């Protein structure tokens, strides 16, 4: 680190050096952040290919003597009970997250459009009450929602989770999408309507395609939120075959507290779908924030 700083000024003008000082500070900082971010994940991967015995050693093996995929095989093997459970949890998570995502988009798109375009009485009040939902933690709603789900007969069903998760994503989704619609010129729709389109057609044919990045961002956000949710799933579901991944894994490993390779493998597998999804679609997400929410 210090050598870098010292070699920088050699053979350069003073002005150049000052700019480079910031640049080097930035680079050193990024290296630090990279280590902070990546090392825990690398250690998770290394641990996951150790045997249970190799993981429990001091000092630790930095690289396992005998790397093994046994933990992954165990989790993905439908023949044994661990694999059966894991695959079922995985499927449950996938189902709940997908349904939540689809419903969120269906509910958020028209709402955001209305908040952006129409000026009905109470518009601002309703808009901000929707945003306020973001303020409240799941735990506040747990007891009454638990009672409500009991009344609706939804305890121990995925319906209870989908209904609840819907409201997580909605505020941010509506906020993001509204920003998008604010930036789409009204004239485009007006032109379409002069050409004989109904308001609904103008919305579907003109506005929807233009707001695709926002919709994709909204969908990613809902999916990740639902995939990772823990508290409601932990409280509403008690039957083993209903559990979603975060709760399932926690249940499982509270019984096998020392199987760290298995735990790390499960954590890795749980992260793969959302990380891949996000990395593939992340440019939409950043673009949606830039054009929607953050824009002045």
């Amino acid at each position: 680190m210090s050598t870098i700083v010292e070699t920088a000024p050699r053979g350069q003008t003073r002005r150049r050096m000052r700019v480079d000082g910031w640049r080097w500070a930035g680079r050193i900082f990024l290296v630090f952040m990279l280590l902070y971010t990546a090392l825990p994940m690398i250690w998770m991967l290394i641990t996951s290919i150790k045997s249970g015995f190799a993981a429990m050693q001091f000092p630790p093996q930095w690289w396992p003597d005998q790397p093994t995929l046994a933990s992954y095989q165990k989790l993905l093997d439908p023949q044994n009970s661990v694999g059966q459970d894991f695959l079922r949890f995985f499927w449950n998570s996938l189902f709940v997250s997908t349904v939540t995502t689809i419903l969120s988009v269906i509910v958020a798109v028209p709402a955001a459009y209305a908040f952006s375009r129409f000026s009905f009485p109470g518009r601002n009040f309703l808009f901000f009450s929707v945003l306020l939902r973001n303020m409240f933690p799941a735990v506040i709603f747990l007891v009454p929602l638990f009672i409500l789900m009991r009344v609706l007969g939804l305890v121990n069903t995925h319906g209870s989770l989908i209904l609840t998760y819907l409201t997580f994503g909605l505020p941010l989704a509506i906020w993001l999408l509204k920003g998008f619609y604010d930036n789409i010129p009204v004239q485009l729709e007006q032109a379409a309507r002069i050409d004989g389109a109904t308001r609904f057609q103008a919305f579907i044919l003109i506005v929807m395609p233009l707001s695709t990045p926002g919709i994709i961002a909204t969908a990613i956000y809902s999916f990740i939120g639902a995939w990772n949710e823990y508290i409601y799933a932990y409280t509403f579901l008690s039957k083993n075959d209903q559990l979603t991944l975060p709760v399932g894994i926690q249940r499982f490993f509270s019984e096998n507290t020392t199987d760290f390779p298995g735990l790390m493998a499960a954590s890795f597998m749980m992260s793969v779908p959302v990380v891949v999804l996000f990395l593939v679609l992340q440019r939409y997400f950043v673009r949606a924030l830039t054009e929607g929410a953050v824009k002045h």
Partner: protein
Amino acid sequence: MTIVTGKAEARRILQPGKSGLLRKIWEHRADYAYVLPAIAVMLIVIAYPIYYTIELSFFKTPPGLQLRDKTFIGFDNYTTILASRVFWKVTWNTLIWTVGSTFISFVLGFAAALALHRDFIGRGVLRAVLIVPWVISAVAASYIWRWIYHSDFGIIGAVLVGLGLADRPPNFIDSVSTVLPSLIVVNIWREFPFAMIMMMAGLQTVPEQLLSAAKVDGASAWQRFWHVTFPHLRNVSTVTILLLAVANFNSFIIPWIMTGGGPSNASHIWITHIYELAFGRQLWGVASAYSVLLFLILMTLGYFYVRALSGNERKEGSA
């Protein structure tokens, strides 16, 4: 507060008074159809529970949550809370947790966004890697870090011993003095990417001409940042900090999975404490009263949140 402004707003638009308002609502009846699904879901899952929580906070409800047998006890639940020593302990923890996590996450995220703003080889990859912790589940993150902090086989302990900085691996999350900072490190690990994304998006709205003009005028890098970039980002910063603060104030998973609030309440924050009171000790009334207090605090924060957001709105309107 919002109700008042909402009504005032409506009146300003509608001028002619009550019958005018009703007529206006009627004229716009089709518009409400667009927002109805969103509002309906919100009402069921939010308004009803809020009402219910307030009601429960004035009752003593038996452990099995048999609502028919609850008895009215006035403000007893509230006085129980304020009199307990755990309350102050937990409140202090929550304060450290929220302020510490929010401030450091924001600073790290903002700095990372600035450092990533200039193009260089591998920027896209680096940005993607830095965002990953935000995407992975908090449950997975908690287990990863619990393993890293492990008192016998943890990698940090091993490194410290290897470097001769400690005689034996320290007990990060089983010790009263280190548990909260250790958990905050995990929380920041998961949260700074959010600040980074928000600030990256914000940085893209800073007009390039303004920065080059400042450069031509001889402003240093720091001056350009302080006088051009930063003022432009004030709104984004406010919203980001508020969202982070609320998320941190409301966090549950990391302390719950990593320590369950222990040892001896050292890592209990409000939310985990409420959860334990309700679903652990089944003190529904006390837990509800806690929730109501929490609600009041959040409404105060929410007031600033809405103000920051409507500051955005106003700007958009005038632009």
